[in-house]
């Protein structure tokens, strides 16, 4: 049994700050790509138990159907996944922004989902890596589901972990009905390792 992970108040603040910087960079890139103003909330850092996980993602989006893409990242003792959950009602607005044709078929929607996920995940993961001096490997993105109720995204029977650190970031775009959630999930061993890394930042 591995040691149960927990965060002190300082550590939580530190992760929040690191994420803040990283998501700022991601939002900046998205703003340049789309020429819009991206609203940034304060990221939410939490340790969640496996049985709370479904509830956590449910609480992020109350939409009847969502689409989700996840991408694994690993480097220097830190491993995790970036999960982008996209409210399905945002599709028409984002297709306008990305200048896709009005009526999207399934492939085009997927294409768009991947484009947005790529910008948000990529920039955010690299941003965090840069601050912690880690060069992350990123795996191919995987579609967890398109147009499905959020409870169907995850196969709970096969969950192998006990606790995870989740950083939630809710991106919205001004004047548009666009709402998506980026969830950065870190494994337990990674959190222990990252706590050591950030202890240098917290020293003074």
């Amino acid at each position: 049994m591995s040691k149960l992970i927990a965060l002190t108040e300082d550590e939580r603040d530190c992760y929040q700050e690191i994420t803040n910087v990283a998501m700022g960079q991601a939002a900046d890139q998205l703003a340049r790509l789309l020429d819009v103003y991206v609203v940034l909330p304060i990221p939410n850092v939490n340790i969640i138990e496996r049985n709370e996980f479904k509830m956590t993602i449910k609480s992020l989006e109350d939409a009847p159907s969502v689409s989700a893409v996840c991408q694994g990242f690993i480097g220097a003792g830190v491993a995790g996944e970036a999960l982008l959950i996209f409210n399905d009602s945002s599709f028409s607005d984002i297709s306008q922004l990305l200048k896709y044709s009005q009526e999207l078929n399934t492939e085009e929607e997927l294409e768009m989902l991947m484009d947005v996920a790529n910008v948000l995940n990529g920039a955010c993961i690299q941003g965090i890596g840069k601050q912690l001096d880690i060069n992350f490997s990123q795996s191919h993105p995987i579609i967890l589901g398109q147009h499905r109720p959020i409870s169907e995204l995850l196969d709970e029977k096969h969950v192998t972990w006990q606790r995870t650190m989740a950083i939630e970031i809710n991106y919205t775009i001004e004047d548009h009905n666009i709402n998506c959630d980026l969830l950065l999930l870190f494994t337990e061993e990674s959190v222990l390792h990252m706590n050591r890394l950030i202890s240098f930042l917290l020293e003074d």
Partner: protein
Amino acid sequence: MTDSQLEMTEFHWLMDILQTIDVGLVVLDRSYSIKLWNGFMENHSGIRPDQAKGQNLFSLFSEIDEDWFKKKAETVFLLNTRAFTISEQRPYLFKFSNNHPITGRADFMYQNATIIPLNNVDGTTDNICLIVYDVTNSAMSKKDLAGIKALLNT
């Protein structure tokens, strides 16, 4: 840019590509000492290139069956041909954890591997390159499919 500058730039590109590519690359010599260890191997194993270089592959990774691997690799050294292992035959060569630790269902990374000869100038082979692919996704889908087929047949 002069030709030599261009060559240097290209060399840097190649090094970047080797480091970043989502495929494991390991160069081994005749005694199975590690000569090259790329970013994929570093990140997934947690062993830095400077720790890996010069180490014996089998002492570093006890999960690799030495006799089995040598049998495969010796043909590469001798015959100058490629050798392959697939995940159906052996689920993994290196026991790495699944690339999707949170949403993934596999307990480890399924791997395919290719061993290619690296020739000397005179055509003999003193080094081999081990190429490791992450095939967890397709391996899991295949397993699911086999499970469903079995259900249908009962």
